[in-house]
């Protein structure tokens, strides 16, 4: 498979072939979770049976999530259609989709709802993208209609003839409004950067299967917003999100979001926000903790003194970016304490570190650092003995977010080598690993897919432990900031006064020489 290097979410480098003018070879599995509504399912399957995508590459898996009487496969269905049922006790939409995901054989999974009528080239439109890169999520354009349904035979005939668009009155239908709006603002998601994940909507999205298996499955604890949450995790595993306006389908009836938007949002704000760290517009509280932190900080305590590790971790925990978690890495499982004279234990520094934070909810101890920080979107690797100031991490992550940097190297000190702290963007690293050629450094690939940047540690507020002040009540940091801002305001006020005076002077001068300009060859 090709591995073109999409930068951020700008998929402009991909040039899909025209529909009907290419030779597909990747198998796709359409996964449909259904509960009740046999009549709508019949129409969905009838439209799938009329796709332009080759039938030998198209598999359909219908998962009946406990309908009584059970759903059955109707007369008009694609050649390769399977019907599965969820077990009592493990029900729910997410679970049903996960059951389907377990058995798919295609290279791409195409989520579809059981009340969708696809146009004849809907699958093909999705698949022409997946042939270009192996880390894509493709979202189609859905229109919602409230109307009398045609019969399966009518649907099949219309879709087969390429007339799926004429089944209903477009003017009487509603677009998937927020996606259309978002597309408008972001050049079809090309400039959407870190919010592109939102278009993973399981009524009409398709995902590379390998990527989906790495990032997934759907979180069954979430009853709503589970697709958004999986989209977020896909992004942390390197996914790029493509909007395909030519992948068209009809949704029979309006969505739950349309019918009960406010109440769905109210639910999602609680349960989805906990897991999706990029929802910064909801996570505005200065001191809250969430299940998935915005920033994961890794401090490797091996070989460091207790004092150095403590200074670093204390500094990080005093950060005004509160939405973080610290992972301290060390051989915790094999530490032994001398029960008589514990102060003489071997590895006493590690023992002390282990004791110091064990009841702090934002600190965890791991034997080794995981390869990826997923699902946390940012990871800072900070050497012990270096302490960020309270504002440092907030500003550093903001810098990364603003420019979309995949890596910010912070130069701390140097001998022959330069000692650094590193801020990594989880999604950029994941994608870099996907596209890196054998022998290529991951950082070179990160440079391509997101950009890398160097900053000076001293300028950005990293101090050696010996110079770092003890963290204090955050008020003191604020006071410091206030004092600084007050001084700045005073300076600017003075400058404004000076400039105003200058302007007055120039005006007066100008008034005294009314015709000066006309004198010269301008």
């Amino acid at each position: 498979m090709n591995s073109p290097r999409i930068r951020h979410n700008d998929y402009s480098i991909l040039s899909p072939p025209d529909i009907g003018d290419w030779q597909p070879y990747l198998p796709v599995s359409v996964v449909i979770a259904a509960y009740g509504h046999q009549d709508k399912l019949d129409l969905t399957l009838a439209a799938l049976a009329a796709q332009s995508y080759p039938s030998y590459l198209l598999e359909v898996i219908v998962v009946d999530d406990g309908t009584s009487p059970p759903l059955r496969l109707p007369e008009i269905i694609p050649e390769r259609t399977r019907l599965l049922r969820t077990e009592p006790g493990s029900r729910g939409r997410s679970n049903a989709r996960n059951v389907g995901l377990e058995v798919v054989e295609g290279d791409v999974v195409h989520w579809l709802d059981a009340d969708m009528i696809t146009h004849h080239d809907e699958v093909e439109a999705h698949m022409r993208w997946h042939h270009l890169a192996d880390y894509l999520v493709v979202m189609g354009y859905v229109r919602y209609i409230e109307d009398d349904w045609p019969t399966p035979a009518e649907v099949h005939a219309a879709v087969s003839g390429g007339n799926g668009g004429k089944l209903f009155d477009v003017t009487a239908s509603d677009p998937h409004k927020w996606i259309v709006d978002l597309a408008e603002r972001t050049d079809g998601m090309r400039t959407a950067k870190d919010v592109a994940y939102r278009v993973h909507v399981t009524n009409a999205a398709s995902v590379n299967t390998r990527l989906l298996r790495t990032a997934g499955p759907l979180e069954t604890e979430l009853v709503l917003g589970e697709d958004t949450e999986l989209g977020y995790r896909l992004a942390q595993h390197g996914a790029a999100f493509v909007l395909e306006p030519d992948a068209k389908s009809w949704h029979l009836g309006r969505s739950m979001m349309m019918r009960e938007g406010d109440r769905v949002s109210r639910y999602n704000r609680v349960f989805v926000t906990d897991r999706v760290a990029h929802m910064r517009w909801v996570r505005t509280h200065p001191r809250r903790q969430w299940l998935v932190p915005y920033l994961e900080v890794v401090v490797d305590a091996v070989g460091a003194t207790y004092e150095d590790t403590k200074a670093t971790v204390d500094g990080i925990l005093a950060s005004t970016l509160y939405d973080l978690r610290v992972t301290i890495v060390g051989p915790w499982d094999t530490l032994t304490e001398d029960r008589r004279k514990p102060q003489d234990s071997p590895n006493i520094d590690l023992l002390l570190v282990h004791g110091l934070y064990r009841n702090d909810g934002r600190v965890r101890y791991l034997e080794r650092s995981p390869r990826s920080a997923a699902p946390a979107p940012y990871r800072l690797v900070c050497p012990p003995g270096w302490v960020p100031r309270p504002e440092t991490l907030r500003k550093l992550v903001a810098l990364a977010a603003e420019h979309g940097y995949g890596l910010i190297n912070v130069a701390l000190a140097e001998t022959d080598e330069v000692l650094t702290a590193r801020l990594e963007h989880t999604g950029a690293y994941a994608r870099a690993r996907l596209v890196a050629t054998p022998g290529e450094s991951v950082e070179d690939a990160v440079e391509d897919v997101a950009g890398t940047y160097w900053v000076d540690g001293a300028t950005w507020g990293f101090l050696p432990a010996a110079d770092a002040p003890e963290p204090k009540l955050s008020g003191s940091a604020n006071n410091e900031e206030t004092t600084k801002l007050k001084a700045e305001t005073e300076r600017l006020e003075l400058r404004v006064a000076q400039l105003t005076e200058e302007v007055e002077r120039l005006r007066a001068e100008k008034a005294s020489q009314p015709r000066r300009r006309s004198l010269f060859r301008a």
Partner: protein
Amino acid sequence: MISGFVANGAKVVAAVSGVEAPDEVFRRLLPDAEVDWTDVADISAGPWPVPDPAAVIILARTPTDLRRLVPLRGVLPLGKRIMVVVVETPSWHDAPHVAMSRGLGQRALREVRVLRYGTSGWVVTTRFAKELPSGDVAAAVARGLTGHHLNAYPLPAAGLGEADLADWRPGDPDVTCGGEPETSGVTSSDLAVRAPGAEWPDDRIPTVARSSWSDLAWTTIGAPGGYDALTELSPDHLPPVDERSVNPRGFLRTPVKGVGEISQHDGRWTASLDGDELVRFPESGLVTDTDVDRLRKLRGLRLTWRPAHTGPLSATRIVAGLSAAGVPLVAQDPPAWATAALGEDLIEHLTDGELPADLADDLRREERSVLLRRCALRAHGTTARWNSLATAAGLTLPSPPTISVVLATRRADFVRFALDQIGRQRDVDLEVVLALHGVSASSPEVAEAVQSFDRPLTVHEMPAAAPFGTVLNEAVARTSGTCVTKWDDDDWYSPDHLADLLLARAYSGADLVGVASEFFYLEQIDLTIRRRWASEMMADHVAGGTFLVSKETLDALGGFRPVPRSVDIELFTTLLRAGGCIYRTHGLGFVARRAARGRHTWQEPVGYFLHRAKDQWRGFRPSRLMEPA
């Protein structure tokens, strides 16, 4: 109003250059005097209309306009009271002073006043004990505005057929105007420019006939037989750019305004931005330094060739002038006459590039500017033009300055790298003095590198204990060039590095020139950064591994101080305190290598460079002018 200069009702004569409504200036300065003025285009060799004037005024719109009057020294009136007015000066200009020659006029000087005129102009009034040529005062003020200590060109002595041709030799007071033969056996000039068909009585002097812009206006060309003039156009037909006033000085690396347009309205070329007129060029197509200053804020300028009713000379002269000033100019689809008059090289740079992306990126824009100015100064500068005319006339030219490159190194393994960089220098005549600082000339790396170097090279061994300043002085003592330049063994230089330094020296007139230390390659972290230094300006320092200074100046300063380091800064300070000046040209052709500190404990840490970096790029990423091998 200037009080006490002349009595009420006094009769005053004035020579005017570039000012459209001089009466209003005179009314403002000397409201009670009776001023009789003549424009530079109408000055003749005959007597001035006012006999025995009370004072003489030299009125110029810009320093460039003042320099147009300097070659007319011989035909400007005499006076005891002489006033020089420059209505506007570019922002980089300092206050003027009167720098007359000792032995000529300085002894007779009794009073000087320097006053501000408007927001950027100057008035200089002088009173002498006896009558002096007002042209001498004009020349003295003009000289005081540049870095050049002498108002001279290393060129054949020039003659001009009439005052209207003054633009051919701006700023040079040693010009004979009018072709009257000298009675002595020595001719008044070596080479002269005259109007076509005009008389030139002294047939011992070779002459070149040149039409003024108005003779080559389209109306004339359209007349029967006029088209021939167009087909014969070459760069030598354009009046040269006065590179000592119209040059890259004041270039802005990060412009604050957008891309403007140059187009032609009512017979005048006009530069505008979003419909606002910025500069209205005179019909002759003369570009002045204050016009350039007004355009510095622009990201670029797009020129539309048609309609070009002013004729080919005005249009191409503007392009040559702006290009020489490094204004990022774009002029697509040039007509054949433009290519003929400007030369194919310049046209290629004007039409080259991926636009508008190349203008939108600050670095690409500056690269374009450097390529344009280099090409235009070499093809259309006053020195270049007269060199070309003299060559065509079969005259012998003074040789260009030769450069001695002083390369001191403690590292045998860098000799090859450094000599490779020197070996690829273009368009300069150079020699190398290789000072081996505690390194043996017989070490294989050195011997091999020296062996394969095909330009003049002197090797000199110095003991490791000798201070760096001493090593340099010993090396300089073994040079034979006009200029000496210092070379770092581990830095990267563009193939035009030395040629660009000579060019900057020629247009700035500075005693020492060097480049801005902008690009650094941070070897440990494989990163190229660019610092925020402003360039193309008089400055107090330049990159240590790049400066070029005449041997004579270096000798006058006593060479380098015999200290182990900071020899460059010490030299700069000594020079500035002695009244010399330093010019910092663009830094696109130089990348300093910043390796692990190792022994160099005085080196700044890597964070120092990161903090000061305006731009950074992963890997070794010099400008395109570096032409990496």
